[in-house]
């Protein structure tokens, strides 16, 4: 479904992604692992158009995305969450999700001002959709929280809201950047189940960057390991975890840190 071929990116001489081939298949959960600075977030930034690749092709269902404006890539069906959460802080929880429906709604300005029947119908539909996305998280983002500003949410709820917002864009591929980072074990467990449900119940195709190996083990259909922008291993969790280069990349980092 999503396919990268020979993608490279460097920042001022520092090669962050090197000649990377990658694919995410329909209804698959792909985990991307690798030490800090391996280029995982940059990989997501390339796919979503935050940065343009220096070389290579990025295709969604055969349609080339490389170099297109970020909002068009999003409209083509790629959505994401951010490693450092980026919500619309001063908007309400519900508005955060509703805002993400912009691309597939059509109320013109004058229709909203005149509150034409079409505009009102669409507004009600958008609200219902947003409510539905939020309901996916059980009682976490329900009730009074709808009308609270996003900044008032707890850390874990902010991560959940970011996922809900990403869902509202109707993505074909959902990119989750360290969704369990900073969460306690119970919340991490919940996120693990949630990602599985995103695929099983909603039918999303998912690529997830994750550091917690229990999460990776629990959710992955396939795992790709990056180090210094190079794919060093690919396969099932057990294969990748046993790969000597992966072990070295992680161990090497640890020994380097110790020095």
């Amino acid at each position, binding site marked *: 479904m999503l396919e990268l071929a020979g993608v490279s990116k460097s920042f001022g001489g520092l090669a962050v992604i090197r000649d990377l081939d990658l694919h995410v298949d329909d209804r698959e959960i792909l985990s991307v692992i690798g030490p800090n600075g391996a280029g995982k977030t940059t990989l997501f930034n390339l796919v979503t158009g935050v940065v343009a690749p220096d070389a290579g092709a990025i295709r969604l269902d055969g349609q080339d995305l490389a170099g297109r404006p970020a909002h068009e890539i999003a409209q083509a069906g790629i959505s*994401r969450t951010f490693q450092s959460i980026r919500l619309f802080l001063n908007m309400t929880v519900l508005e955060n999700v509703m805002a993400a429906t912009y*691309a597939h709604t059509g109320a013109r300005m004058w229709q909203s001002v005149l509150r034409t029947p079409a505009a009102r119908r669409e507004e009600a539909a958008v609200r219902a959709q947003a409510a539905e996305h939020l309901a996916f998280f059980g009682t976490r983002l329900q009730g009074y929280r709808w009308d609270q*500003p996003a900044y008032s949410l707890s850390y874990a709820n902010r991560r959940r809201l970011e996922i809900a917002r990403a869902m509202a864009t109707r993505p074909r591929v959902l990119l989750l950047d360290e969704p369990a980072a900073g969460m306690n074990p119970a919340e991490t467990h919940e996120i693990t189940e949630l990602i599985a449900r995103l695929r099983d119940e909603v039918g999303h195709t998912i690529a997830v960057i994750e550091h917690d190996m229990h999460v990776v083990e629990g959710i992955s259909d396939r795992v790709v390991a990056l180090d210094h922008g190079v794919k060093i291993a690919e396969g099932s969790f057990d294969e990748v975890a046993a790969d000597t280069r992966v072990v070295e990349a992680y161990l090497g980092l640890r020994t380097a840190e110790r020095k």
Partner: protein
Amino acid sequence: MTKIGTDEWVAQVGERTEAYRGLTAPVRRTWDGIPLGWRFAAAMLLVALLPVATDSSYVVRVGVNAFLFGLLALGLNVVVGYAGLLDLGYIAFYGFGAYTYALLSSDQIGVHLPAELTLIVVVALTAGLGYVLGLPSRRLLGDYLAIVTLFFGQVFVQLAIHLDRLSLPWADGPVNVTGGPNGIVGIDPIRLVGVTFSSVTDYFYLLLVAFVALAVGLHRLTASRTGRAWRALREDPLAAEQMGLPVNRLKLLAFAVGGAVAGFAGAVFAAVQVGVFPQNFETLLLIMIYAAVILGGAGSLPGVAIGAAVIAVFPEVLRTPDYARLIFYGVVLGGLVALLRPWSRLAAVLAGTVVLGFVVRFATAAAWPDAAAVAPGGLVARALGAWVATPPNATTVGNVAFVLLVPAVLAVTRLRGPARTWALPTVLYLAAFVWETRLVAEPSVTRQLVLGAILVVMMTARPQGLLGTPRVEML
């Protein structure tokens, strides 16, 4: 603020806002219970009675001015408050609208289009200009955008001044487009579907209707697809774009809407004033509009409207010394109350200032025996006359005092602790002295000083503006 992020705390928000305490609680709860629409309608009905209640055309003219400010502030609020784009060229749209209306409705180029058509042309052209001037915002943000747009604003004024001798290759002599420094005069009144707007009162009601329409329209827009998109863009442009929002198009749209509103206001302004001149569109006006938006609270429609009313009305109030005094001493007092803690310290400073005043007045009574009274006025003036020393050669002494006041104020801001408490009465008295000897008599200077002071006090006491909500930028 400290508890942000705690869901339990958030859960209690209802209880906390319910629990207004004190005597005013029932009043406040009732007020909160009235829907916003009703409050707005009531306020506008009251305002609509203004021309009936007074037979002074001056007061109605101030009202017209306030409505023009209101339109401008609401338009600017779209660009700055919603989309979060710092546009310092905003006044150019106002001027462009005014000049366009003037050109199409006067003998300047001999064109007299029907007003219905002219207004549509003006709105369309200024919206288009908004698109064009908004183009830099696709790449530039914050300070950079501010500088570029400020440049546009200045270019407009320069064009208005110098386009009276435009050489065109096909024309024989220089063509006079804008009338240069003399502007364009003899502009037709607005005439809509057979009704001619001739008196100031007519325009008052025209603007009232336009203002209500704009406020209602923007209120609906805020909670719509487009309004949400603008606010998302203001909150986090990168995240907005990643959620599929066409960020650049939305920015241009905000510029166009803001521009169209300002253009319409400019057209009405041209018709009311029957003339347009370059100095009508200078940076001071821009500052006033920004002051209105900031004072009222960027992003809040009622706030911005109230801000505009305050900014439009208060320079007029300053013309009367007694009212000017009320504002001046009110602002000083308000500033002290907001800044000085604990209460005992506040009381000490105030008492110190009052006592110091009488001492100085008494001591100088010998040197300045037949001192001229403070600027004329009612009860307040007489009370002040007994307190503020009044030298016979007020201008000279006042000027010296003014020069002393500036370093004194700076010094006080540097001092800490008890030293400040001790220094404050002297500085406050000096300020009152300067005010009474010099400023009260010169409203044009005072106006700007007081405006600055009000904004400074607001910044410290309520940075989000009167009705704005405090914004959280980052967690």
